[in-house]
């Protein structure tokens, strides 16, 4: 074979190839351009989020949590129940200022003198979105369904366990007869559904309410469309009795990654980012000072506590688990908490985005908030903690380690959530602080803490609950009645606390219909819980969220002054949000940017193609 021949053919090769390569590059550029071009048509992203296709004002909220069910009888997750708050009116609502109970579907309510019958007056100016009138019959049917159908009791059955009978003697009158007095009757957080729609449902345990849209409701918004893990779309209910929302549409869009959600806010794709449960300090810091973005920080609903195992037991008196016996001594529990520097936890772990813990109920709810008096307070005092431990008989040995009654050095297992960075960080501090007292700490960080927790196989544990405006539930989980029936069962108990004094106070507050006296009883319970030292509240984490001021002009926070926006008790934020008159100044610059981007992309591709061709020609000749 002659080399000449080889070269001759070799030259046609590259030429052919060059054409092919150019064609490929061209096609790629085309695809890129096609992908870019169309969505640009409805104008710039900033304007797109705030304004829909037909000039509609759209409020877009970035969320991460999947909808578990759109049926109010099944849904338990925060996102789903928040959406239900918007779709269906409840009997009562909570004032955005201080969370006291205000009228909603019920305009007024009255208990009977024997405390066993409650009569609610149902408003006559609330209509379902299909035009039918909302009546007391809808409410009675909803509650009766939950009392008689196990499937319908799935999500909210706990609200009706004490109900004896529910009737609607007239379209505006709902009468509930109780088995025993219940002070939480104005806090029935149950969506009332239209009877004429829901009576057609056969199996409430399987019906998810997500097949036909729009979904008939009577709340401030009507759900018009839903695609799992893509979006939940609602439109404003123009005939809502409290007045129509100012935004025409409310869209919850999914961003499974919080950094991506923050990016979407920065870009203007969404108007609001809540974070789950809050933006990280780094995210908040990066958004602060950004143009048209406001970082909103308000008191949260959660408390963050260190729970102590009081010796797990069942209602039948059987003990189980393996909590450290030294923790049964109140002095030890108090000493441990006194060696915890709460201020450092707020400053270093929460980086200032939390409030120092005191009583069980967060200060967000002023009616029930309680804090210890100066003499009662277990303030940070490591020296006093050491004294208390000495008094309790846990003295240090020659190595400086405190020794238990069995002669072994004290070492506590602390159960922590592997998914919660706060737990891990606080755990490290505990090691240091308790180590100085002469006590060892083993951090058990698990993805799923429920197994050891339910089995009582821990000494201490990081704990936290979200508190509702009516604190009954978070109080009830520390009563003896909440213990599991036998060690094999699961009870509603949080960490096996069973205290007679506390139980008596709990029963009293549940039967106390006078709000002031009930609040006093609740505060006494918090005081008792504080002294017992089984639930040591370290902090109340803040809600940290952000929104675009060029899309949302104003929005109601809860509490009204410096409160939070996402996950309120009520629909105040989205109902009250006022759209901003978005200036479209960014349009032209973005479009220009896009054009520049496309040109740059094509140039890069063309450059690559040329480079390839040249290289190819060079090497074809080198070969052989």
């Amino acid at each position, binding site marked *: *074979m002659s080399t000449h*021949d*080889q070269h001759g053919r*070799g030259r046609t*090769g590259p030429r052919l190839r060059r054409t092919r390569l150019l064609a490929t590059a061209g096609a790629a550029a085309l695809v890129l351009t*096609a*992908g*870019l071009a*169309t*969505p640009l048509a409805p104008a710039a*992203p900033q304007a*797109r989020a705030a304004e829909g296709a037909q000039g509609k004002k759209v409020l877009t909220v970035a969320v991460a949590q*999947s909808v*578990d*069910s759109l*049926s109010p009888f*099944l849904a*338990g997750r925060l996102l789903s129940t928040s959406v239900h708050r918007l779709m269906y009116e409840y009997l009562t609502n909570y004032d955005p200022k201080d969370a006291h109970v205000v009228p909603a579907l019920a305009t007024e309510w009255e208990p009977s003198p024997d405390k066993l019958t409650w009569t609610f007056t149902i408003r006559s100016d609330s209509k379902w979105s299909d035009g039918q009138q909302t009546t007391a019959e809808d409410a009675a049917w909803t509650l009766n369904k939950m009392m008689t159908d*196990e499937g319908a*009791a*799935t999500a909210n*059955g*706990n*609200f009706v*366990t004490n109900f004896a009978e529910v009737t609607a003697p007239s379209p505006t009158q709902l009468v509930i007869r109780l088995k025993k007095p219940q002070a939480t009757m104005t806090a029935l957080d149950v969506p009332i559904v239209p009877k004429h729609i829901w009576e057609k449902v056969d199996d409430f*345990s399987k019906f*998810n309410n997500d097949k036909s849209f729009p979904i008939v409701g009577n709340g401030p918004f009507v759900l018009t*469309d839903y*695609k*799992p*893990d*893509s*979006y939940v*779309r609602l439109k404003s209910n123009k005939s809502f009795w409290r007045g129509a929302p100012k935004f025409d549409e409310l869209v919850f869009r*999914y*961003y*499974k*990654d919080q*950094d*991506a*959600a923050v*990016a979407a806010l*920065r*870009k203007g794709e969404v108007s609001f980012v809540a974070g789950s449960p809050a933006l990280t300090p780094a995210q908040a810091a990066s958004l602060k000072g950004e143009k048209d973005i406001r970082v909103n920080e308000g008191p949260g609903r959660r408390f963050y506590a260190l729970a102590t195992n009081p010796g797990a037991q069942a209602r039948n008196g059987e003990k189980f688990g393996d909590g450290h016996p030294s923790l049964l001594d109140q002095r030890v529990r108090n000493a441990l908490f006194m060696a915890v520097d709460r201020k450092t936890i707020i400053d270093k772990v929460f980086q200032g985005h939390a409030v120092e813990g005191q009583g069980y109920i967060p200060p967000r709810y002023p009616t029930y908030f309680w804090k210890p008096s100066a003499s009662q307070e277990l303030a940070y005092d490591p020296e006093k903690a050491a004294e208390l431990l000495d008094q309790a008989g846990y003295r240090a040995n020659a190595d400086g380690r405190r020794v238990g009654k069995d002669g072994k050095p004290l070492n506590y297992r602390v159960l922590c959530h592997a998914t919660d960075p706060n737990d891990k960080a606080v755990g490290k501090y505990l090691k240091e602080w308790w180590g100085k007292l002469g006590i060892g700490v083993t951090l058990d960080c698990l*993805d*799923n803490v*429920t*197994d050891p927790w339910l089995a009582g196989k821990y000494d201490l544990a990081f704990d936290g609950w*979200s508190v509702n405006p009516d604190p009954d*539930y978070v109080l*009830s989980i520390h009563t003896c009645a909440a213990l599991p*029936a036998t060690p094999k069962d*699961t009870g509603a108990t949080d960490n096996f606390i069973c205290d007679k004094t506390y139980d008596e106070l709990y029963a009293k507050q549940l039967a106390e219909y006078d709000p002031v006296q009930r609040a006093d009883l609740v505060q006494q319970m918090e005081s008792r819980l504080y002294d017992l030292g089984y639930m040591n509240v370290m902090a109340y984490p803040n809600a940290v969220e952000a929104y675009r001021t060029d899309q949302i002009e104003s929005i109601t926070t809860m509490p009204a002054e410096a409160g939070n926006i996402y996950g309120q008790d009520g629909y105040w934020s989205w109902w009250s949000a006022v759209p901003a008159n978005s200036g479209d100044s960014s349009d032209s610059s973005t479009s220009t*940017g*896009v054009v*520049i981007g496309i040109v740059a992309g094509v140039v890069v591709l063309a450059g690559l193609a040329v480079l390839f061709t040249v*290289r190819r020609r060079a*090497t*074809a000749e080198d*070969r052989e």
Partner: protein
Amino acid sequence: MTAEATPAPAEGAAADPGTSGPAAGRGPRARSGAAYLRYVAGKLAGAAVSLLAVLVTSFFLFRLIPGDPVKFMTGGRPVSAQQLAAYRREFGLDLPMWQQFTHYCGKALTGDLGTSYQFRAPVIDKIIEALPNTLLLTGTAFVLYTALGIVLGTRSAWRHGRLGDRLNTGLALTLYSVPSFWLGLLLIIVLSVGVGPIPGLFPTGGMESGGKEGFAYAVDVAHHLVLPVVTLVAVEYGQTLLVTRSALLDEMGGDYLTTARAKGLRDDLVRRRHAVPNALLPTVTLIFVNLGRTVAGVILVETVFSWPGLGGLFYQGLSVPDLPLVQGLFFVFASAVIVMNTLADLLYPLFDPRVGR
């Protein structure tokens, strides 16, 4: 002529269930139909056994996950003891393990994968809902990274040791080692939000903007597809590239290539018609392994780009643990791998006549 020069086929897929490496043929040279049928039957039987094993394994595997689904689902909100008991009864968690197992098997054999605990919907519905989304993402990426890997791998091998090869493999290795979620976030920041003079060209996440139909919808989805696909292609093509490159390098010393050149064939033709087809077997194995994986989704990329696919669904199932959902998904994922491996086994004889003889 080419077949004689082919090395024994790689047994890359041997570790996967349902696949045993194709045995080198012995005995009579002519391929007999009966032998091939026997080969096929053997492979199919193996696949069936594997599927059955997966069915049984998936039941027990996920019961090892610590955690109480009922406690997780009701965690943090008010529930009464009656409600907890009702949950357990409804999910069948109050039954002894063996009874749960027989129920599961009975249902599975009739194609019923049960009802998801958390979504209260048939598992099969949840899978069908998310499967097309995942296939669109991983399928598109698969085609692109396979093509890119083969083309660049071939180039690299043909000019191995040169600057181009070094750059090529260097870049591929770098991208292959980059964590996909990190690359994804970087792309979001640069190409979606925009940095400096670079404008935000693509959506930050999701699969659609919503409210679009027909062609506009398709374009909208394509627009959302760009960044996740680019991320996947970037981190995945390196594997195909390296496998193709090394397989081709093994071939390059082959006498038959010298013969082909001696016949006067152009270099391009030598590569395309002689070297590459013989070097492709390991790549084919890899292609089928990748194809089986496309169903399982790509959890990290799906999360970063909020793509509503199977990967995300599996993650949600695991965190509960939503036993019927994870069992069902595991079964589907494993089946896809088994089916693809079996398919690869059945196709090997076409690439290498000695297999299955």
